[in-house]
């Protein structure tokens, strides 16, 4: 756990210490999100490391990571809170059996029922409940998958970091969470929600940055191999694939090649491990058609041979 950063460079250093290399743009956005305590909205291709940002923030600052995975049809009972109905029913039956139910009036019976101990806290409530120490990190993953209604609801909760539960009243925290929202952009998220947030479009990393990322995440892989893998991936991203490989794939690829005992890439091993970078049959065909020898040559030239 570390103190909150006071400059953009603090952020860069802090993230790097936790194996995440952020460029100027992302670091600035994160710095502002922490300092202004505003939600950070990250959009970008799948596999550029959006979700990772939240995880790293939690590791670095020591706040608890609370994850809310969105999906179609998600509503308040899965995102905020729910009463434990089974236990409530059980409580009612017990009250009845012991004769307590007829002895007490219905108001106090009801009050007993909507007590905190019957409350199931879902991620949003968890994140907005009073807490101490470093701020928790709330990851709202793939917000674009949720319905518009849920978006509106989230907007309300995030605008003053408070939530009202009819039976318990308002729940509010002095120590609001750091909120990271991610979207793959399967649809446009409403402007009102975006306006509430700081926005950052996450791109595929540049060649040098990707090399550095692999070095960090896949230690033990030979340096020339890392450069070649990064170069080959970069070349593939330019081939108009259905699903251009993300950083996670590049790391996997480097690890796979290293696991096979390679210190430099060659045609045969690329062919054997293509499945770790390209997840569509069509993409594999396209890359193979464009010529693996060419790809290997490009990688050697750009990445430098061993």
């Amino acid at each position: 756990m570390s103190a909150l950063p006071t400059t953009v460079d603090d952020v860069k250093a802090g993230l790097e210490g936790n194996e995440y290399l952020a460029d100027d743009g992302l670091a600035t956005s994160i710095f502002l999100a922490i300092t202004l305590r505003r939600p950070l909205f990250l959009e970008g291709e799948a596999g550029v490391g959006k979700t990772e940002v939240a995880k790293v923030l939690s590791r670095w600052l020591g706040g608890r990571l609370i994850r809310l995975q969105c999906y179609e049809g998600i509503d308040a009972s899965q995102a905020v809170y729910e009463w434990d109905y089974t236990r409530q029913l059980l409580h009612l039956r017990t009250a009845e059996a012991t004769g307590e139910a007829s002895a007490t009036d219905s108001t106090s019976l009801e009050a007993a029922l909507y007590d905190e101990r019957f409350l199931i806290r879902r991620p949003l409530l968890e994140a907005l409940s009073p807490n101490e120490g470093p701020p928790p990190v709330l990851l709202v993953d793939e917000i674009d998958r949720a319905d518009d209604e849920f978006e509106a609801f989230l907007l309300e909760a995030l605008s003053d970091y408070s939530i009202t539960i009819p039976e318990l009243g308002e729940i509010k925290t002095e120590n609001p969470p750091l909120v990271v929202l991610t979207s793959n952009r399967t649809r446009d998220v409403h402007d009102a929600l975006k306006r509430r947030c700081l926005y950052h479009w996450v791109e595929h990393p540049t060649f040098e940055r990707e090399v550095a990322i692999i070095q960090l995440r896949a230690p033990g892989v030979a340096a020339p191999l890392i450069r070649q893998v990064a170069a080959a991936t970069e070349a593939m991203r330019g081939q108009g694939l259905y699903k251009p490989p993300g950083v996670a794939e590049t790391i996997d690829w480097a690890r796979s090649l290293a696991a096979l005992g390679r210190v430099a890439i060659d045609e045969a091993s690329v062919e054997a491990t293509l499945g770790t970078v390209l997840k569509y049959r069509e993409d594999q065909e396209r890359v193979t058609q464009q010529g693996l020898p060419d790809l290997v040559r490009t990688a050697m030239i750009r990445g430098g041979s061993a």
Partner: protein
Amino acid sequence: MSERSPDDAAETTTLAAGETLAVGFARALRRAGLRVPASATINYVQALGLVGVETRSGVYWAGRSTLLHRPEDIDIYDRVFAAYWQQTFVETIRFEGKPPSVTLALDVGDDEGGDGNDDGEDEQDSEIQPVRFSRTEVLTDKDFAECSAEELAELTALMSRLQFTTHTRRSRRQVRATSKGDRPDLRRTVQRALRHQGEPLHRAYTEDATRPRRLVLVLDVSGSMEAYARALVRFAHAAVVARGRVEVFALGTRLTRLTRFLYSRDPDQALTLAMPKVQDWAGGTRLGEGLAEFNEEWGIRGMARGSVVVILSDGWDRGDPLVLGTAMERLHRVTHELVWVNPLKATPGYAPLAAGMAAALPHLDRFVEGHSYASLEQLATILAGQR
């Protein structure tokens, strides 16, 4: 500049100067066509105060994260940034193009059907019957290409009366069931039990809710479609207004997303807004590449998944039919239903021989005509899942 002590005099001056600059920059962005709400400007000023104005990178990224909300705007932002902060003379900051000097023949004063008939975008009425107007019966069968300006105006006015209901899909959301539903609704059962001293006499149930499937319209706006394109945009607008979850794209030499511009309830205004956006109105077509781009940027990621996708085009493609075939095959694999509307299909003796059309045909769920109001009305019915 990372410290903000109020008694530091130099600090205060810089901030005030920074404020003016920041507000000016926001204004410049607005002039270039970006939507920058005042709240974003305030955030920007705050962000600049924190990041400092010493480095280009700080000023740039502080603005990127506070003033910008869509990747499409990055380009404009970069140019305005260069022009404003670096005082570089940039010759063409691309402002919104002027609307093409086409006088819309669609300007009919009477539009009462549009607002009176739709009751909310998300509401679904399964019982809605398509309305027919006998006095226009003849006109509705006439090919758009043969209509006079007045006739077109009359037909497009009619379009705002089209009823769009929709295919539905099961949602994971649970709603209150009227009778015995799929799952016990413990929440309501507990609430009811309280009325009977905790005895759960009445059990409540929930069932799966239904959601309208997304409808994606891809309009071909190339030269060969000129006679139809305006009517089709009007059709798309009617769809956007009538129901939720509609996306509209225009496809010519490039792909343009029109949805945003069609939100307005006034069709003519929406048309004027939408039209200058499409830079290749009546230009050439590269259908295959356009659809591939749609797949890449929007469709496969989720917009087309489980949706009803309708392509409105005559199928004349200047590009490689193989590209179109592949794009269609890929699209077909993720959609719920893939429909092609071809205005030429109604022509007597028409066979889908155009290379593009022939390549697309094997991947379609439906191939329908779309040359006249009646055929579009029928299309609306098909989209409603009523045949």
